[in-house]
């Protein structure tokens, strides 16, 4: 990576630099002052010294106008798309989402949500981060006054359960309150204002899964897949092996994650919501530690192994 000295040479009011690359460049450096730089082109890995435009078939862009300053617009909904009632807005929205018809569900989004989403394409792509509704049964559906700008539709929903380290937890069951808003003479779904109250499996299930986990390790086996988070448990993972051959592991009562020290590994993996849905089962015996479990579908799965401290 040696570089010859650059020699600025002033010719006809313009400074020419003889900085070139390597030995070949050094020869070129002399030539650049004397003859056309084009004679130096074609150096292997060196600086280019002439226009390869003809060889490359590239255009002269200096006069081509390119639009780089026009902001992107938000896609408008198709005409006549608001639903005639709050209930129908929700029903149609859920139906379209279930059917994968994101163009139609986009048309039913309230303006505030369309502004956030920006485009039909983005809405389609967003499906991957949204909870997938499997069913929704409205239980409360009061007719709003004629002057009302918003209304709510409540009911029970089933979702495709999900647990990952990007979007966190989607429960299998929940009570849902949809907010709908009056727009363009009809009703649209204010999706971002919809409230979900998750319904988790009973806490006793967390104790059962923890027992299965410790029993397996005490028997010097791996725990069953169905009670362990598929993408890998976080925390101090080597601790399970310390139970091998023992029978002394004892389980404590379920506790909240926030009530235990050092939950950072679980929170980092699953997000702050884990503070709400996770259950912690203290384990004492050959080693004392805490199993952290998540409600997945109709059961609890171990997602973390934490120690209280050194």
């Amino acid at each position, binding site marked *: 990576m040696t570089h010859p000295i*650059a020699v600025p040479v002033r010719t006809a009011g313009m400074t020419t630099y003889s900085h070139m690359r390597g030995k070949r460049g050094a020869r070129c450096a002399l030539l650049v002052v004397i003859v056309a730089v084009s004679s130096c082109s074609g150096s292997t890995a060196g600086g280019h010294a002439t226009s390869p435009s003809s060889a490359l*078939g590239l255009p002269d862009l*200096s006069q081509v106008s390119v*639009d780089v300053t026009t902001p992107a617009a938000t896609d408008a909904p198709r005409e006549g798309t608001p639903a005639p009632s709050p209930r129908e807005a929700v029903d149609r929205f859920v139906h379209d989402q279930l059917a994968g018809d994101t163009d139609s569900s986009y048309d039913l989004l309230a303006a505030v949500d369309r502004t*956030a989403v920006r485009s039909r394409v983005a809405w389609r792509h967003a499906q991957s981060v949204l909870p997938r509704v499997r069913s929704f049964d409205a239980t409360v559906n009061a007719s709003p006054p004629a002057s009302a700008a918003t209304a709510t539709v409540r009911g029970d929903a089933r979702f495709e359960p999900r647990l990952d380290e990007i979007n966190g937890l989607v429960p299998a069951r929940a009570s849902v309150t949809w907010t709908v808003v009056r727009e363009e003479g009809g009703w649209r779904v204010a999706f971002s204002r919809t409230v979900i109250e998750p319904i988790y499996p009973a806490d006793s299930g967390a104790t059962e899964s923890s027992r299965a986990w410790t029993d397996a390790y005490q028997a010097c086996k791996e725990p069953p897949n169905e009670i362990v988070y598929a993408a890998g448990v976080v925390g101090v993972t080597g601790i399970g092996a310390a139970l091998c051959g023992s029978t002394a592991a004892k389980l404590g009562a379920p506790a909240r994650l926030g009530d235990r020290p050092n939950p950072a590994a679980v*929170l980092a*993996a699953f997000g702050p919501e884990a503070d709400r849905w996770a259950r912690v089962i203290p384990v004492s015996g050959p080693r004392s530690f805490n199993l952290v479990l998540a409600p997945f579908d109709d059961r609890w799965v171990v997602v973390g192994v934490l120690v209280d401290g050194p």
Partner: protein
Amino acid sequence: MHWTRKRRYGVLTGAGAGLLSLALLAPAGASSHREAPLITEDPVADNTDVYAFVSPDKPDTITVIANWIPFEDPAGGPNFHRFGDDVLYEINLDVNGDANPDIRYQFRFKTTVKNPDTFLYNTGPVASLADKNLNVVQTYTVTEDFGGYKQVIGNKLTVAPANVGPRSTPDYEANLGSKAVYDIAYGQRVFAGPRDDPFFADLGSIFDLAGLRPLNQAHLIKQPTANGIDNLAPYNTHSVALQIPIAKLRLAAGTPNDQPDPIVGVYSSTYRRQTRVFKDGNGAELRNGGPWVQVSRLGMPLVNEVVVPLGAKDLFNASNPLDDAQFGAGVLNPEVARLIPVLYPGVTVPPAPRNDIAAIFLTGIDGLNKPAGGRASEMIRLNTAIKPTIADPNKQNRMGLLGGDRDGFPNGRRLGDDSVDIALQALAGATPFTPAFNISPNNLLGDGVDRNNVPFLTRFPYVAPPKAGYESGK
């Protein structure tokens, strides 16, 4: 959509974060080592470089390499550098030019400790990724979001560990580095771990009022002429490399396999949770809260580093390519191009508006890598129909397209492309796109650092193995 508990926790979570993140994910350089004020304070989340090229030894695939953590000292133990467990890393592909990513690859890392009762990173020599002596192990998942359908395509994959030294990690690349390459779903391959930082540049001189050591005597403020210094040479970085079949890109674009010149836009992005607090004032109880927020993004080299003005750099990192029109004016009249004639008297550059620069950095170049009907946005654009000129990445023409390699930067970016010199010359107008300025001295501008200090691998992941901590400082 808000998630709550019956007892009124009332916090936006889960899918609520999902929708909110639409706005945030949707609003989604060189290198961009320390390119913007905020991200400078958060190196684990700092994208440093993105590369995208047709794989030289497997031309039916492309390879995308995204790097994070700038200026990573290999000796930084016992808590060696690693990906952030609380960071969401993404590689995004736009296959139809609309500035919306059609395929997102998301990476989440987690660190586990085998024995918490020692401070040691490794408790003896480490001969394999599963070696019991490797006490601190980082694993990761790869999630593919393909046009709105999300799927985990790689699970419990092990990150290549730190290259500690000859006692701890003997035969590093054979035992550990090469073993961290995984074949995952749909014919794809992935690697994650420390690598030699492939970016090469004389940053010390460039950031000293655009100094170019070989041209020091031509600068407005003269210094003795000298060879360029590769300031990145001592450092590692953390790479994520992906190899993706071109047929998959065409599938995403909805174009049949026999259709020519599919162009893909590539950029990386990084997200953190909205808040970080120390619970109850306890410095050992760090808690992250809120939805993911984009804190860094990177496509083309040098855009945010030297094109976007200081006051807008953090905005650029937090914004989405779809909204890059807001930076259009800066690209049409780039500051560096205006500075060149001032700092190097006698050099003349094309006048604004610099449509040539906008084409190179924002739209793609007609006839080369501009997607039909594409929207201006800052991404690396790669024409996957142009096959590699040469298989050995160490023998490619460092000047890329300007050197005659149609498969080189700014058509994609290969590891050996000298993006600093190419960008400098492009800003000076020394390209085929502005022939009147493609003259000396414009086409001789350069920092004097022409190649990486160590050779690249000739096989995936191509990036050179990381320097060992034991060797650091030599």
